[in-house]
């Protein structure tokens, strides 16, 4: 069966520090991968998605970047965090486009 791992679960970082959130998928090949951000009590905003290694589409211009160094690995990064980067970050995968997405357990990021 397929599983998705996302870590860390909780992170507190000072303003101006770097960020690296990692997500890996097991049990499938060539998944579509997604990073979403959820502000408190709000919906999900798509940040990045990838349909293959090295292929990254950015949805929102911001302080973040994403990379896909391996088929089932998706990394969300920042060189310098801002207070506004605080939120709940969710990684997700799907078998192909137009099918349901399955989510990791999320990372609660607090920038102080």
């Amino acid at each position: 069966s397929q599983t998705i791992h996302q870590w860390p679960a909780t992170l507190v970082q000072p303003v101006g520090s770097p960020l690296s959130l990692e997500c890996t998928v097991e049990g499938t090949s060539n998944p579509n991968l997604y990073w979403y951000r959820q502000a408190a009590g709000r919906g999900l905003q798509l940040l990045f998605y990838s349909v293959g290694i090295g292929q990254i589409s950015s949805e929102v211009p911001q302080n973040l970047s994403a990379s896909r160094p391996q088929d089932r690995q998706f990394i969300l990064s920042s060189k310098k965090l801002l207070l506004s980067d605080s939120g709940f970050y969710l990684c997700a995968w799907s078998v192909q486009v137009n099918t349901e997405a399955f989510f990791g357990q999320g990372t609660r990021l607090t920038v102080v």
Partner: protein
Amino acid sequence: AQTVTQSQPEMSVQEAETVTLSCTYDTSESDYYLFWYKQPPSRQMILVIRQEAYKQQNATENRFSVNFQKAAKSFSLKISDSQLGDAAMYFCAYFPPGANSKLTFGKGITLSVRP
């Protein structure tokens, strides 16, 4: 641009009763996918049900069913025999066709279940 609207921010239902959560969307596509996701307090996103636009039959998963009205671009979720464990935030989502399409979510609705 496609949008998904969940106009009710909060709803409440008595345990064992039925509740309907509303969702409308805007699209010019004829074929697409619609989903309802549940986010309990743990914040894990869980797929509840999916509907393919080319299928006229409404999807059903145990106590969960949808009322899909394609012409009206409406996709409501009905929860029958509500249970305490149904208390969560529910998100409606839309997925258009195409290799570069993206899954778009509504703002969600918080459902509380009264014992």
